[in-house]
């Protein structure tokens, strides 16, 4: 039988340069993570552009829990739990749609899309019952930043802005890729399941050490400029923003190239419409800078990964069962760029993606690997002696260094030790 870890155990399991293998494989630790991370801290749920019109809804998740993101008639975005307040039946069985209300098929209880119970069958049996006490459950706090909607089950705690901390600037950078300053999530999601713990995915997103090896098969046959970004001579950086947020900052390499749209393996000339719109929106100089720097590569703890051309949402289902939801980033007012983003994303990610099929293979092999208990530890010491502090006060290292993993575990330990 598994016993919930004691608070003092976390400091034994998580050391500055190594973590214990059981953190990835112990079902009791997974249950503790649901309570202390997924059902407490800010978790990314969906994007406002997925529910553009009144009464639109889309079914999302927080960990294993099904969450309905609705836009009600007043235009407000709600995060409702997909569980009838009567006997627990799921009230919504479709992935998306447009509905003013959800009627539970079990006993015909009907809920407005803001969660209110508006009626039940044969109401005379409920004489005197206060309907307001029987609303759908909801995610306690809902906040959004630049269209990205996050939820927290904690009634109190840091605001979303406090949680995003220094990483908020990466989202500002992201939306500036659009001439209208907005991201749109409209291309549908691929759902890629892996038989592995969610933290293998989380840590890999800003691991700049693996691409040269895991992705050697595709770098070798495609005209990809990605490989060099992760080489020993690269000037790109890893960064720990605190609060578990981590980044691979490729801008130093893109700035050396000094060529707009090189970050996307193309040129401004090949995207004349986009280039014109960017210049009109930001002016010649700033548009050029944005188009050189490209989209960030940032992992917002615990589940939102922006990876230059696509967005991943990590969903843990069980200690050894996780889903990566992935879609192409789409930028408002950039149809010619968006088409290429969709094509590139489809090639790269998802169950048959040139890149993600191999990443996912590593997650699954790592998961089976850590079941062996000697050595007991995952060693995360790469670059510990050469990490430094950047102008903004964040820890940075070489692109292949394990600054991100160390940052993630520092924050993880803080969350798990909290009571």
């Amino acid at each position: 039988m598994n016993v919930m870890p004691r608070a003092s155990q976390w400091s034994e399991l998580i050391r500055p340069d190594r973590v214990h293998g059981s953190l990835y494989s112990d079902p009791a630790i997974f249950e503790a993570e649901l309570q202390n991370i997924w059902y407490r801290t800010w978790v990314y749920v969906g994007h406002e552009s997925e529910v553009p019109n009144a009464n639109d809804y889309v079914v999302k998740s927080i960990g294993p829990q099904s969450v309905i993101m609705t836009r009600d008639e007043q235009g407000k975005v709600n995060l409702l739990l997909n569980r009838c307040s009567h006997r627990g039946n799921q009230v919504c069985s479709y992935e998306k749609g447009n509905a003013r209300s959800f009627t539970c098929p079990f006993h015909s209880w009907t809920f407005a899309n803001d969660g209110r119970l508006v009626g039940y069958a044969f109401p005379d049996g409920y004489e005197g019952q206060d309907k307001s006490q029987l609303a759908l459950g909801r995610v306690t706090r809902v906040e959004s930043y630049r269209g990205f909607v996050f939820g927290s089950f904690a009634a109190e705690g840091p605001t979303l802005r406090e949680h995003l901390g220094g990483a908020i600037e990466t989202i500002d950078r992201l939306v500036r890729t659009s001439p209208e300053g907005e991201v749109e999530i409209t291309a549908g999601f691929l759902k890629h399941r892996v038989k592995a713990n969610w933290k293998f995915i989380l840590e890999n997103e800003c691991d700049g050490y693996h691409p040269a090896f895991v992705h050697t098969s595709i770098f070798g046959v495609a005209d990809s400029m990605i490989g060099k970004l992760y080489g020993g001579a690269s000037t790109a950086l890893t960064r720990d923003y605190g609060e578990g947020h981590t980044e691979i900052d490729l801008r130093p390499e893109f700035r050396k190239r000094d060529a707009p749209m090189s970050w996307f393996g193309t040129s401004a000339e090949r995207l004349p419409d986009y280039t014109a719109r960017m210049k009109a929106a930001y002016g010649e100089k700033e548009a050029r800078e944005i188009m050189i720097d490209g989209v960030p590569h940032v992992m917002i703890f615990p589940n939102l990964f922006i990876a230059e051309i696509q967005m991943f949402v990590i969903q843990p289902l069980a200690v050894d069962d996780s889903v990566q939801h992935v879609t192409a980033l789409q930028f408002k007012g950039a149809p010619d760029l968006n088409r290429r983003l969709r094509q590139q994303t489809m090639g790269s990610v998802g169950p048959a993606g040139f890149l993600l099929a191999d990443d996912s293979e590593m997650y699954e092999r790592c998961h089976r690997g850590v079941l062996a208990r000697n050595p007991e530890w995952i060693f995360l010491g790469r670059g510990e002696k050469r990490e430094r502090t950047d102008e903004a006060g964040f820890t940075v290292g070489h692109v292949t260094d394990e600054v991100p993993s160390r940052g993630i575990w520092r924050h993880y330990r803080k969350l798990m030790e909290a009571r």
Partner: protein
Amino acid sequence: MLSRESSATLLDAVTAFIYREARFQDEHQYEAWEALWTDDGVYWVPANGADIDPDKEMSIIYDNRSRIALRVRQLLTGKHFTQTPQSRLRRLVSNIELLDPQPGGDIAVGSNSMIFESSLRDDTIWAARNEYRLRHVDGELRMAYKKVILVNNEKALYTLSFLV
């Protein structure tokens, strides 16, 4: 309209083609499989249903001919770790039917398949509806289009890195 006899002959030829394709896929004969395609081939595995618009929404695979070639080249490196070691595969193909002819003269064919995959992760069963457009090129049948509609393509899927 084909006569009954020529229709039967065509169905035999199409069936033999599809069985051969299945064998090439099961046995990882990547180059032989690639040679089955026409120069304008499209290989499509939609996600989230059968009728999405692949130019607007994400598909699991939506390869034009050059991307089919890239997929094969990646497999041939021997360092595509999800297929190193290779999945062991056997598939059954059935319900092969000639469908309404296509405007350009391509032969439209439907079939069902069930694939048993044994990989390092586990054993996985895949099931699909397949829609082909075949064409005679220099007297040989070739694939101009293959759409694989996985029965469970609305759900989260494990890695699908063999040729489906």
